[in-house]
C-alpha cells in the first residue's frame, strides 16, 4: 500500500475543493439569480466535464500547459517553469474537471431558497450581501456540504486527466489512482488490491457521512421555516 500516494491525493483533493468553494459560490450565485437570457450557455460550459471524457480535457490541458500554450507561456514567464508534471498543474486541471460537481449542487440549493424570503429580506432593508450571508447561505448548507464533498471525492478518484498531464512523479503527481494503475501494470495485484480497497472504503465513508449529515441538516434548517 502506498501511503504517500494516498496523502498526495488527499492534499490535491483538499486544495481543489477549497478553490472550487471560493470560485463556485459566486459563480453559482450568478447562475442561480442572474436574469440574463443567455445564462444557459455558461451553464452548459460548467457541465461539460460531466460528459467529456478525461482524455479530451487532459489532451487540451497538456497542450495549454506546454510552452506554446497560453497557460504554459504565462506560467513560464511568471515562474520560470512549465505547468505540466507539477502539483499546481494537477490542481488547475482538477479544478476544471471537478467544476460541475461543486457548482451544480450550489446552484440547485440557491435556487431552492424560497423567493418570498429573499423579498422579505429586501423589504426589511438588507442588501444583497446581507441577504446572501443571512438567508441564502444558512438555507443552503446541505448543498454546500454536498458541493465540497463531491468535489473532494471526485478529485480523489480522478485518473485520466492526471495520467495525461502528471508524468507520474512520486510525491508530486503520483496520485493514488495512478499508483493503483502502476501496481496492476507491474502485476503486483496484492498491493493494488490493498490500496484500492482502502480507497473504496474511504470513498464510501465520506459519501455516507455527507448523505447522513445532509439529512439532519435539512431537518434542522427547514423546520423553523416550514412549521411557522
Amino acid at each position: 500500500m502506498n501511503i504517500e500516494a494516498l496523502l498526495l491525493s488527499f492534499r490535491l483533493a483538499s486544495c481543489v475543493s477549497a478553490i472550487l468553494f471560493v470560485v463556485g459560490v459566486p459563480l453559482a450565485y450568478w447562475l442561480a439569480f442572474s436574469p440574463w437570457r443567455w445564462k444557459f450557455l455558461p451553464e452548459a460550459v460548467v457541465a461539460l466535464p460531466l460528459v467529456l471524457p478525461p482524455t479530451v480535457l487532459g489532451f487540451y490541458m497538456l497542450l495549454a500547459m506546454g510552452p506554446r500554450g497560453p497557460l504554459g507561456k504565462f506560467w513560464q514567464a511568471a515562474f520560470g517553469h512549465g505547468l505540466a508534471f507539477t502539483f499546481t498543474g494537477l490542481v488547475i486541471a482538477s479544478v476544471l474537471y471537478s467544476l460541475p460537481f461543486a457548482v451544480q449542487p450550489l446552484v440547485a440549493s440557491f435556487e431552492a431558497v424560497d423567493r418570498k424570503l429573499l423579498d422579505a429580506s429586501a423589504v426589511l432593508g438588507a442588501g444583497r450581501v446581507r441577504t446572501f450571508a443571512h438567508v441564502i447561505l444558512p438555507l443552503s448548507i446541505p448543498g454546500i456540504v454536498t458541493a465540497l464533498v463531491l468535489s473532494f471525492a471526485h478529485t480523489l478518484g480522478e485518473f485520466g486527466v492526471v495520467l495525461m498531464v502528471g508524468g507520474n512523479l512520486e510525491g508530486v503527481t503520483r496520485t493514488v489512482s495512478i499508483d493503483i494503475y502502476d501496481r496492476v501494470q507491474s502485476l503486483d495485484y496484492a498491493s493494488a488490491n490493498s490500496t484500492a480497497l482502502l480507497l473504496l472504503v474511504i470513498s464510501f465513508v465520506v459519501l455516507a457521512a455527507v448523505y447522513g449529515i445532509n439529512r439532519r441538516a435539512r431537518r434542522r434548517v427547514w423546520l423553523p421555516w416550514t412549521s411557522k
Partner: protein
Amino acid sequence: MKLALRCLLLLWALSLRTAGAQEIRVAAAADLQFALDELAAQCQKQTGRKIDVSYGSSGNFFAQIQNGAPFDVLLSADIEYPRKLEAAGLAEPGTLYEYAIGRIVIWMPADARVDLAKLGWQALLEAGVGKIAIANPEHAPYGRAAVAALRSAGIYEQVRPKLVYGENIAQAAQFVSSRNAQAGILALSLAISPPMRDGKRWEIPVNLHAPIEQGAVILKSAKDKEGARDFLTFLKSSAGRKILDSYGFTLPAPAPASAVNQ
C-alpha cells in the same frame, strides 16, 4: 421526436454492421504504433484478412489476456510476457517468436537549441533541458532500458530529478512532442515515425543496456488460429522483416527458410 428516434435506430443499425466480421485481433506494444500500421496494411493486402490492432502497454495486455481478453496474437515489447503466458498455458505451444530487438534514442524537437549530435549524453545535462520523458521503468521495457543506459553512462543520479514517466513509450513520446518535456529517451521506431522524424535524435549505444527483446505469441484463446498463424508468417517473411527494419528495429538473426514456419 419521431425523427430523433429514427436517427437513433439508424445509428444502432449501423453500429451492428461492424461486429461479427472475421478479423485477426492483435494486441501490440506501443512502440509498434507506426511500423505495425504499415505491416498490417500489407499483410491485409496479401492475405485478404482484416487485422484489428490494439496498441497499449504490454503489461496491461498481459493482465487483460490472463483475464480472458479476446485477442488472437500478442506482440509484446518485452518477450517475458509471452514467455509467462506460454508457461501458464495461455499461449499456443511453439508459437513464441522473437520478432525484433528494440533500440532507444535521445530525441529532441527540431528547434531545440542543443547540439544533440555533438553532445550525446551531455545534452541531457544542459540547463535548457528541464524535463526528460521516459517510459515508466517499473513496468515498461523501454523505460527499464532507458534507466539502465543512463546508469551505464554514469549520469542517472544527475538527471533523475528531471525524469518524468509516461505510462508507456508512446506517452513519453507525446510528452516531448507536445514540448512539455524538452528531451525524451524513446523507441527508435517512434523517433523515425512520420510525426517525429524531423526532430533531433541520438542513438544510444546498444551495449549500455540489456537488449529489448520483443516477442510474439498466438494465444490459446484465439478464435482464429489460422489467421493468427498467417499473420505471424507474414511477420517472419522478408516483407515483414523489411518493414520492421525500416522502422529501426534490430532483427534477430534471420531464420533459415526451413525454420520460418515452425
